[in-house]
């Protein structure tokens, strides 16, 4: 009974989220549940509030009204406990937020900072730590382990995307949030990267990925449409048709 309840509890749940904005609210009455193994695409035109929603989901932005539940729990009051909760939520930022001055390995280990003690954080700046785990993470994003010693600033755009995903894997999150990770990539690279992300989001983990291109929905389980801060639909992918998309993007000039 207890086990079944834990399984059905959503990894991430938003209830009645409202975020204040200039003029109209940036988010209004948003409800969303993300269960283990689910891969959800967040669609919407520019300015619909996709980034805001993700910022609320990872705890960066406290909502004005509504509840965020992480693995069924509201954000803890104590900062330490809250950090432990946030460590279970990994975000793939649109600008990647890699530390340009550090090497690939140091960047990958930055994903472990939430779990690490202070001396270890310092030591990571001096010595190659946990090389095996880092090599494994690189292998999972199909990068050459020889890159570990390279400074991040020297990598190509595609390599940087993969390093950012590998850092996410090092964090070992249960929920992966991704903010338009495909926006600035050419079509082939975007498809490869999306496949990679979808593969990493298998069973105990869940994925919420924001997109502005409805042509990349293959492989997602559910699609959530956001427009002007409000949820317009939350449907299995098969139920999303052109008419629905037309309505979502309508009035934006295609």
């Amino acid at each position, binding site marked *: 009974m207890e086990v079944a309840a834990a399984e059905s509890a959503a990894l991430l749940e938003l209830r009645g989220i409202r975020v204040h904005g200039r003029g109209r609210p940036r988010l209004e009455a948003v409800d969303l549940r993300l269960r283990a193994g689910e891969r959800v695409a967040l669609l919407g035109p520019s300015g619909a509030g996709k980034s805001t929603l993700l910022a609320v989901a990872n*705890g960066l932005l406290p909502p004005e009204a509504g509840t965020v539940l992480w693995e069924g729990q509201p954000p803890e009051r104590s900062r330490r406990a809250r950090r432990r909760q946030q*460590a279970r939520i990994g*975000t793939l*930022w649109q600008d990647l937020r890699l530390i340009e*001055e*550090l090497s690939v390995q140091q960047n990958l280990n*930055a994903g472990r900072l939430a779990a690490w003690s202070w001396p270890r954080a310092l030591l990571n*700046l001096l010595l190659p730590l946990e090389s095996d785990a880092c090599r494994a993470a690189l292998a999972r994003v199909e990068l050459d382990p020889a890159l570990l010693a390279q400074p991040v600033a020297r990598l190509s755009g595609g390599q940087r995307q993969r390093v950012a995903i590998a850092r996410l894997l090092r964090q070992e*999150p249960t929920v992966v949030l991704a903010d338009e990770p495909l926006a600035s990539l050419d079509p082939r690279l975007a498809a490869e990267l999306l496949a990679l992300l979808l593969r990493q989001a298998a069973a105990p983990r869940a994925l919420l990925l924001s997109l502005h291109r409805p042509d990349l929905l293959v492989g997602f389980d559910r699609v959530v449409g956001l427009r002007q801060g409000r949820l317009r639909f939350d449907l299995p992918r098969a139920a999303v048709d052109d008419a629905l998309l037309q309505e979502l993007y309508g009035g934006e000039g295609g």
Partner: protein
Amino acid sequence: MRVAGPVWMLLPGLVVVPVLLRLPQSFHGGGWDLIGRFALAAVTPSLDPTVLRSVAGGLGVTVAMALLGWLLSLLLGLPLGLASSRTVWRSLCGQEGPALLIRRLLAIPRSIHELLWGLLLLQLVGLQPAVAVLALGLPFGALVARVVADLLDALPVGTLEALRAGGAPTPAALLTALGPPLLPGVLSYSGYRLECALRSATLLGVFGLGGLGTELRLSLQSLEFRELWSGLWALLAVMLLLEGGLARLRRHWLMPPRLGLGRPGVGRRSRQMLLALLALLPLGLLLAWGLQVDPRVLLRWQPLPGLEQGDWRMVLALPWAQLVGSTLALTALAACLAVGLAPWLLLLVAPWRGGRIPVRLLWALGRLWPPPLTALLLLFLLKPGVLPAALALAFPNLGILGRLLLEGLDDHPAAVEEGLRSAGVAAAPALLYGRFPAVADSYLAYGAYRADVMLRETVVVGLTGATGLGSQLVESLAAFAWDQVLALVAVYAVLTLAGEEISDRVRRQLLGGPRAQEGVPQGLGWRGTVKASGAGASGRS
């Protein structure tokens, strides 16, 4: 694997460990009650009208000296800066030789600390208000000249060449092509120089050249701590006011006007600056009149006793190796403390909201306190030696470095730190990983520049009888041994120039790497360029 930048920022701070280990042996036992009274007096400064009146008078004199010395340094430094710029000479007559020559010559006044200038001039012409002004103006002028030249020579010359290729006469082309890009750097550096001038004017006062410094020293020596604090708080208020005002001016003039807010108007900024500059000149004259600065006294030299029968064998017999060695040790210790402690302090207070406020206050106090007063205060507790001198020297420099570090951190985008925080990383490691890497190189480069300044400043704490060349200098001055004084000043100059050369190399190494930052000029290090590039990139709201 390459050791990452943030580690180099933190490494010098480890010097605290041996310092703390040595500290217990350095106490001479007494003095705690004095320190207690001193600390208590901080919250109960004297509000006696007589005291306040003399504080106000002293502060007025100090500020006036600082302003005049600063104006003089600009009047000297700006033309000399143009005259020592390679670009200017190359454009005007096709060769760089004269620029290099003038640069070399200017290195000499620059290498002698303003306090030394003050003491030497004091001996030459007696106690006159003009002495302090000149003592500030000469070395500062040479510094301004160097920075202006460095800034000028670091500018790209493409536009200049384009204008000249279009037939513009050289001076007009220089003005049009290089003037506007030069302005932000010069402005922000001049503002910084004004802050330095206020500190140095106080310092000169401590050594008897008048103004608030003199009163502070007298209060300290007569153990009138409450009066001392009245002066210190007043000085702090003026200093913060000045720093805040300059920061506002910088923002006002250097940030691009945001879209839609106010009409920029062609050339309005230049007109405002020109007006401000013109307003400064009568202000200077007024101040000079008020202070009764009389430039003519500078021509009436008193004969120097003892130079003609200089005993050069005695001079050679001074323990030079030991003097130089302890001066260098003092510099290294103070530099490590100042450079290393600022990032450590920020990391330590990172977990607390508002934790930066006490740190900022500590730094403001550090910038305000004349180091010889700190040294005197420390001597209540500690035996004279390298340690109290290094602590006294490190404190103000910690204040300066710390503020620059904060400004640098705030000028960089918060994205990486934010990302780490939202992944559950604690505040301090998020700061270490998210913000420090981006500023590490420029901070260290500025630290190298600061170390070279500290070498020059060892004279200031040495004069309080602590250690090294400075204390020898004080003895020689007291004994009117002019031969020794000259030799000591010369050694100081050589040391400073060598230090400058080394710190220049370190900086080039740090900043000239594969991801060379926007051509950080040498004399300025960091501050001006951060501001200037910030102005280009985005208006801070």
